[in-house]
């Protein structure tokens, strides 16, 4: 918990804590602040990007990143909510973290999120698919 406290204090108003429990911290971040928060997690705290999860909710399209602090076993999960469901876009973290390339390509392909600044914005799973899959994970329910 002490680690969370330091992180929360350092980030200040840039994050809005949603769920705080043993070894898990979920918080919301605005798109304009995501690079700064990720920079702190990856470069300062030396967390590892485990993966990211995109979800469609009533509020918009969410991109939830999962950063693992392997020294403590804690997970830090910054969430960016894109309210424009038609044209969701956010800053790409791939220029900072090479390991995010596939993760963001997959989210872009399945959920239609445009990652600004992604160095290789081509489909991951349907590169040679004969049909345009058109955001297959959206509007399923």
């Amino acid at each position: 918990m002490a680690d969370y406290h330091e992180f929360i204090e350092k980030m200040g108003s840039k994050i809005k804590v949603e769920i705080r429990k043993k070894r898990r911290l979920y918080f919301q971040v605005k798109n304009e602040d995501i690079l700064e928060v990720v920079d702190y997690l990856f470069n300062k705290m030396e967390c590892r990007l485990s993966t990211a999860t995109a979800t469609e909710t009533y509020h918009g399209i969410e991109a939830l990143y999962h950063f693992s602090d392997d020294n403590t076993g804690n997970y830090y999960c910054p969430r960016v909510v894109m309210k424009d469901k038609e044209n969701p876009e956010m800053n790409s973290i791939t220029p900072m973290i090479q390991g995010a390339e596939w993760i963001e390509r997959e989210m872009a392909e399945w959920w239609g999120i445009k990652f600004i600044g992604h160095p290789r914005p081509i489909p991951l799973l349907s590169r040679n698919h004969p049909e345009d899959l058109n955001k297959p994970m959206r509007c399923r329910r």
Partner: protein
Amino acid sequence: MKIKSNLKEISNKNQIPVGPFHPLLEEAEYFNLTVDGETVVDIDMDTGWMHRGHEFISEQKSFTQSIYLVERICGICSTSHPLAFVHALEDVGNIEIPLRARYIRTLVGELERIHSHLLWVGLAGHFIGYDTVWMWAWKYREPVLQMFEIISGNRNHYGMMRVGGVGKDVDPASIPELNKILDTLVKKMNMIAKIVNDDPVLRSRLIGVGVLTKKDAIDYCAVGPTSRASGVRGDVRKDEPIDAYDLVDFDEIITKNGDVYDKFVVRVLETIESIKICRQCLNKLKEIKGPFFNNVKEISAGEGIGRYEAPRGEVFHYVRTDGTNRVVRHKVRAPSFNNIPTFQASCKGIPIADALITLAGVDPCYCCTERAIRVSDKHNKNKKIDLLKLSRDKTLYIRRNA
């Protein structure tokens, strides 16, 4: 002159397609190697050939049905996925499981690691022309599958995991037999470890091949033996010791060179550590009485992360629940998803003969379908290149000239 120079550059570079169906890949995946002469200068990867939509299907199923579904994501890691999934659901509901179930989960998970690493050791031996290692490793893997059969009734897809515990108890009467199998196995693993350590040809063939530096392992967020062989510490069993991992004694194996030899060493030594863990679990299961399952009536609405150190690295499951008996969002990330992109770093600059073992070094999944490849040379003539033969020929060359 410039045009001529560019033409020369183009004509000297050839494309070597590997896959999408190839003996080194369990699941279909396509690698396009760009080679300049004998050297790999670039690699492009194309995935998605075997996409089965597990996340989507899981969201249509109840929790218990989804356990069986995720068990079938991978035939080798058929404990890791369901275990990570139930960890995620238990994380949502803050569910505790009985002590006996913790030991059983750990036992089954470690047995899976042993058989998966032995599978890889055998295949790696085959790729570099050590067919005896291949046959031995797979021979010694067989008793591990027998142990699974004794414990769960199945050699694969054990159906052991449940939210709140495990589905089957370990029969105390079978423990002496299980211990006896481990006695045999540890002797054989020590023998394989000695071979890895002592054989000069094996060392010459694998040391310095397909190096993934520590920086690259961190940048690509690699996991499991792939990152630990590059000197990056990180093992879910140590970082977040759930189940019985905080109750057993074992070492996290880390080496520093990042080459295929170190990946070999990490896997062999991890197998020996896993046998150590299995012994401790079996001894505890003789003593501990009590239930192996807590009947969980409902999972509240919320978000949960579950993970487990699979043989290839961290398996990650994220679930979002709404209070019903199914997940509304289920994210699955297998370790190979993080490890395969590291080929961009480890394959560049290596000879073609080393490409096969480097690609196999991160232990992507394998299948038995072989595909011949054709390469156009600078005279536009097709020539057939067999990567497996190239790799084995190189070992033969070292053996004869050592």
